């Protein structure tokens, strides 16, 4: 639901509270979203290493207060495997498969598992917020809290979406995506990658899916666990992304913004010096 232009702040807060009460156990915390002046960044395709760097830079900028809380929708310029901060390259990636399919291996600043990225098969976003947004929530609860709006957006598209702790967005048909968070410098970074479509054969040539990882999944077939949004909605990718943005906007408001030249310059330097470096990419070889 969106607040009409004539609404008072109190009415707006009240509707946000009602929304939260309907949605879940986060009723106490949900009104916090409306305390911020949310900005939207939605640009053309960017290189994987620039995305990694933008997450670090924009989290920092929000932490210092130079940037307002922001939702950023990603468009990928090329294929990549994005490893979690603590993953070992050798354990996760088949180097020959990655080379054969022209897939760069990157490492992000958050924990969690490897993501197999093909630009048109992937929907990715980040939220950068002051950590006051999640104050008082446990780390585990803050994941579901940060993605409540996405569950709502997906349900509005007919997907029976739900949050499965710790960090999965799932439906009755299977896993849709995963989230990762980190908190630094007074800000929280929450980013999510969802499968719009997938090529399981290619993914299995590039990612190593070990038996231990699947030990409690009830299936040894990685692709059976994933239920891409294209299959579940029959909608174009941009239509799904538009619905995500519109849902956020309706609930909390969202002002069109862009990456500032100074932010971009910092991110470009960081992409080159850190995220493309072997020291970082092979931090855990």
């Amino acid at each position: 639901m969106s607040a009409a232009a004539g609404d008072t702040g109190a009415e707006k807060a009240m509707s946000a509270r009602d929304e939260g009460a309907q949605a879940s156990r986060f009723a106490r915390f949900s009104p916090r979203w409306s305390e911020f002046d949310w900005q939207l960044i939605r640009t053309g395709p960017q290189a994987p290493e620039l995305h990694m760097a933008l997450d670090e830079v924009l989290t920092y900028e929000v932490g210092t207060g130079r940037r307002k809380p922001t939702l950023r929708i990603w468009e990928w310029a090329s294929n990549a495997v994005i490893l979690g901060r603590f993953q070992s390259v050798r354990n996760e990636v088949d180097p020959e498969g990655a080379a054969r399919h022209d897939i760069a291996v990157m490492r992000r600043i958050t924990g969690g598992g490897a993501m197999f990225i093909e630009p048109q098969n992937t929907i990715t976003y980040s939220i950068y917020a002051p950590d006051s947004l999640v104050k008082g929530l446990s780390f585990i609860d803050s994941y579901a809290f940060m993605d409540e709006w996405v569950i709502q957006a997906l349900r509005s598209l007919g997907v029976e979406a739900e949050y499965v702790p710790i960090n999965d967005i799932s439906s009755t048909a299977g896993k849709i995506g995963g989230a990762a968070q980190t908190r630094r410098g007074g800000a929280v970074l929450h980013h999510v990658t969802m499968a719009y479509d997938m090529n399981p054969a290619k993914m299995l040539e590039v990612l190593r899916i070990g038996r231990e990882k699947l030990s409690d999944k009830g299936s040894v077939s990685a692709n059976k666990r994933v239920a891409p949004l294209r299959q579940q909605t029959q909608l174009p990718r941009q239509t799904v992304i538009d619905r995500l943005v519109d849902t956020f906007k309706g609930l909390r408001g969202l002002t069109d913004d862009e990456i500032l030249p100074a932010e971009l310059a910092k991110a470009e330097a960081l992409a080159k010096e850190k995220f493309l470096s072997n020291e970082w990419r092979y931090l855990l070889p």
Partner: protein
Amino acid sequence: MPLHGEFKQPGGKLVVVDLELSDGRLTDVHVSGDFFLEPPEALDDIVAALTGAPAEAGEDDLAGRIDDKLGPDVMLMGFDARSVAVAVRRAVTDGSPRERL
């Protein structure tokens, strides 16, 4: 010869340990996985806690060494000291050299 062990709590995250044994003690210890850990530098403390431990150290001993080393502000999510200890025991007792799984 590097030894390799893995463990995943039900509903949790994978913990991978690679290590070598030298004079009956753990050396060249590497801990990785798809877990969450804040601050990220605490991974170095986990590795330091394990390095030099006797090869025969059991789960309780290893988990205790890790817990002792981690400060109160460290947050582990999807795993705990015991998950790491189990992965170490698996590496030491039936760890195979790292190979494609």
